[in-house]
């Protein structure tokens, strides 16, 4: 990599856990450097003193380490040869294959001009009713799963990725366990989908600061396929909480004043920069981001899920339903903000009202359950909502349900008719006349 005219510096003046400083001239902000072969990036310039953040950490770096500046920001060679390959955070292959050829582009590139964006309007069907019926996804959307670490979010993400119609799937793994990495690799290859998948993986075995590069690498590859090839690209990012933790480590080592939950004050902007790469381009290409934000004990007021919720277009929650003993997509807290763009328009006219009525009745069931647990007598209506809730969980919310949206609507109407009168369901009369099972 070193070119003949590059100057080699050998006098480091200061070393901290994550950074080292030296005197150098002609260095530009964000530029990459190599410190004894380890990749580093310029994070601060003060006249001729330059501070470098060493991604792999500074353990064992001597004061006379060889420092070479590369004259460029972190970049990735993009091209069709990326497909089917596995890379590390620097974009180097980890699957034993050759280095792919392509055009070198800097990662973390500019934002799309908002007036050049297209309004997302294409539904992504997943077959999972808890998503398609209640929280419909749309191309160009960004949405995370909010899940506790013990929940099967990687399994659900893989399922969604394989069901969903997309041209490319880009997996960004941050602090992923080796087992989960192998799970994705096996699932995708068993499904025969490897050729449309590109993966950038930082496992728990790799240095944590390196994972800061993963989302930008994944999204730079995604932009190539979406912009140059006009493809529908699905980006999976797991797990963004690990990414935020790495941000906190760096900001702490740079002596920045932490804000809430020890996170840097710029957390919102840092996360938004990633998620806002989700876009529907005018010529058909799109980037859709499905991420995972792991929670600690379901706490969504923590800075990471909180800031994420303000950036993403909704969020999906998984919950184990004790009534049916299965994992369901929680209908109360889950939300897809873009569903309004497609439901009732790209699906059937009754979709919005059926969806809302079912969730309202499910909420009544939750109240009835509380009443029951507190030892109160239940009314006839309470009993009917409880029976409805059980059927609804089993036939609609459970993640193993795989039917199309029309069937989901028909099933829900049948459940309404089984347990309620039209007055109790509270839907526009013209829809009741048309769809209420006779």
């Amino acid at each position, binding site marked *: 990599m070193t070119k003949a005219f590059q100057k080699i510096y050998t006098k480091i003046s200061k070393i901290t856990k994550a950074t080292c400083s030296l005197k150098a001239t002609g*260095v*530009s*902000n*964000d530029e990459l450097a190599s410190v004894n072969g380890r990749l580093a990036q310029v*994070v*601060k*310039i*003060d*006249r001729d003193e330059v501070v470098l953040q060493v991604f792999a950490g500074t353990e064992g770096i001597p004061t006379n380490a060889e420092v070479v500046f590369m004259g460029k*920001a972190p970049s990735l060679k993009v091209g069709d040869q990326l497909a089917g390959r596995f890379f590390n955070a620097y974009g180097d292959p980890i699957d034993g294959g050759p280095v792919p050829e392509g055009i070198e582009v*800097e990662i973390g*590139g*500019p*934002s*799309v*001009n*908002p*007036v*050049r*964006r*297209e*309004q*997302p309007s294409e539904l992504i069907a997943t077959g999972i009713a808890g998503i398609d019926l209640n929280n419909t996804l749309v191309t*160009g*959307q960004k949405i995370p799963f909010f899940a506790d670490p013990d929940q099967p979010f990687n399994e659900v993400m893989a399922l969604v990725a394989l069901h969903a119609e997309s041209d490319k799937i880009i997996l960004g793994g941050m602090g992923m366990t080796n087992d989960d990495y192998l799970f994705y690799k096996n699932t995708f290859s068993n499904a025969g989908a490897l050729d449309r998948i590109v993966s950038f993986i930082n496992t728990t075995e790799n240095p944590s600061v390196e994972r800061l590069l993963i989302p930008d690498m994944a999204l730079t590859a995604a932009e190539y396929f979406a*912009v140059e090839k006009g493809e529908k690209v699905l980006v999976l990012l797991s797990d963004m909480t690990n990414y935020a933790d790495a941000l906190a480590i760096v900001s702490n080592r740079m002596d920045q*004043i932490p*804000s*809430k939950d020890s996170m840097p*004050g*710029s957390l*919102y*902007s840092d996360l*938004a*920069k990633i998620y*806002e*790469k989700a*876009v529907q381009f005018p010529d058909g290409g799109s980037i859709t981001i499905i991420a995972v934000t792991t929670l600690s004990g379901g706490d969504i*007021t923590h800075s990471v899920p*909180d*800031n994420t*919720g*303000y950036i993403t*277009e909704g*969020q999906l929650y998984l919950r184990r339903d004790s009534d049916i003993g299965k994992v369901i997509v929680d209908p109360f*807290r889950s939300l897809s903000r*873009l569903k*309004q763009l497609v439901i009732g328009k790209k699906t059937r006219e009754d979709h919005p009202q059926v969806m*809302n009525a079912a*969730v309202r009745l499910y*909420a009544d069931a939750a109240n009835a359950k*509380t009443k029951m647990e507190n030892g*109160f*007598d239940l*009314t006839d*209506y309470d009993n009917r909502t409880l029976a409805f809730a059980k059927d609804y969980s089993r036939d609609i919310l459970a993640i193993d349900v795989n039917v199309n949206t029309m069937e989901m609507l028909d099933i829900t109407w049948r459940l309404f008719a089984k347990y309620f009168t039209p007055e*109790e369901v*509270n839907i*526009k*009369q013209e829809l009741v006349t048309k769809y209420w099972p006779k």
Partner: protein
Amino acid sequence: MATKGIVTGIVSNLVTVEVDGPVYQNEICYINLAGTKLMSEVIKVIGKYAYVQVFESTRGLRAGDEVEFAGHMLEVTLGPGMLSKNYDGLQNDLDKMEGVFLKRGEYTYPLDKERIWQFTPIITPGTTVVAGDWLGEVLENAQHLKIMVPFVFEGKYKVKEVAPKGEYNIFHTIAVLTDENGKDHEVNMIQKWAVKKAVTAYKEKPRPFKLLETGVRPIDTANPIVEGGTGFIPGPFGTGKTVLQHAIAKQAEADIVIIAACGERANEVVEIFAEYPHLTDPHTGRKLSERTIIIANTSNMPVAAREASVYTAMALSEYYRAMGLKVLLMADSTSRWAQALREMSNRLEELPGPDAFPMDLSALIANFYARAGYVKLNNGSTGSITFIGTVSPAGGNLKEPVTENTKKVARCFYALEQERADKKRYPAINVIDSYSKYIEYPEFQEYIENHIGTDWIPKVNDLKTRMQRGKEIAEQISILGDDGVPVDYHQTFWKSELLDFVILQQDAFDAIDSVTPIPRQKYMLDLITDICEIDFKFNHFNDVPVFFRKLINICKQMNYSVFESDDFNKSLEQLQHAVSEQPKLNEQE
């Protein structure tokens, strides 16, 4: 000679510049990065070092790069041709930019240089004028826009010449004004204004009193906002803040609507771009986009321009208010602006206040809200800026600095509640926690008595009392059980549910229900209040929800029907029938 400088330090978008001459606080400068000029603003000066925040990414910048100071603060260019434009936070016309991706250092002119305007003079030569006085007008999207004495003109001027009625572009001199020293000044259709300064070219700022109709029932009926009023909407994510904001922006009875999308999702702005050209203003029948200006600094656009975006939006609003127009300014979200301040304060290594926000946050918020208001202009006309900001409280906790400081200054408070949102009761405004201080203004009460009715405010207060009582009873029932409270408690609770479902909940995605004009709001409030005043007789608490669910269902069909249409009247008959069938307490068996 303009001051020049050299970059000496870089940390993210905070750059230190060694200068060779005088600079002033908030002066704009341009950093030359290999031929690309990066716009920046001076935010601190120590000796010969100016600390500047760069409105762009600083990737690739080096120590030693050259800087040129512009000699002015961050300013907007005001003139005809801004309506239906999409600007970034620095008033660059986004539609004039080339390519799909934003290019660093690309700045576009906010107005149309070539466009010809039909100018009509208002003033006659010889008249004495001051800043903000009207010289003439042009017509843009059916709005009579005034060409004014520039706001920066101090003291009195005598009109020497005015251009005759005719067609001119924005640069054409339309008047010559002579100052007190006898010096002549040429005025064209454009003027510049430093965004961080408030425009004060008006006579007085009386208390606002006119209802600003939004068509949103939980606002207009329960907690109304006024022309020139201020309000804010705090809410955890997923409680429908944006949907509510968009509903207000679409439906409010305003001449001009300015939307500052400050650090929010790009797709939300795209929704406006996509929908507004096809939607009509319910009050004038013209296209919504014709009265709307969008200032977009979405969350992935440069952070430093986020602060600028809200000030740009306010300066534009003040410009239109000075023409005697009703302006509605919406900022979503002011929390992102505060966070941008926090990031910069952190890089400047200032001592932090609560939650690491800068210490002067409360003053900044107060000063900003104070720029809204209802004003009497020098010529006796009135204009207003109604400002509604959203706040995104961290973790949904309202005891955080941005919410608390905003609460001190905004007069209307619309509390969005997670619990209501979870139950899909939209808009998720909790009417009990929310308030409008304007209801207590005698001027406002008088206005309502003259325009809606004398019994309106008592009925609104009655609604709130019933909602409060309903909530208390719901809590008692959950502790004591259905049979642990008297049957008439159930009736009181279900009356509050009736009010909630029929008046306070509104389907923002239904063409009819989403916008309710005041006469219809009054009709429904009267109707439901009358039902609530009847003491129905029930033998068992189980019968209460059955009856009220029936009423709710009928009333919802009414909400979905065209006002006073056949469907509406049919439902009304059903409702009256259901009410008359149910036994009453004081009736003989």
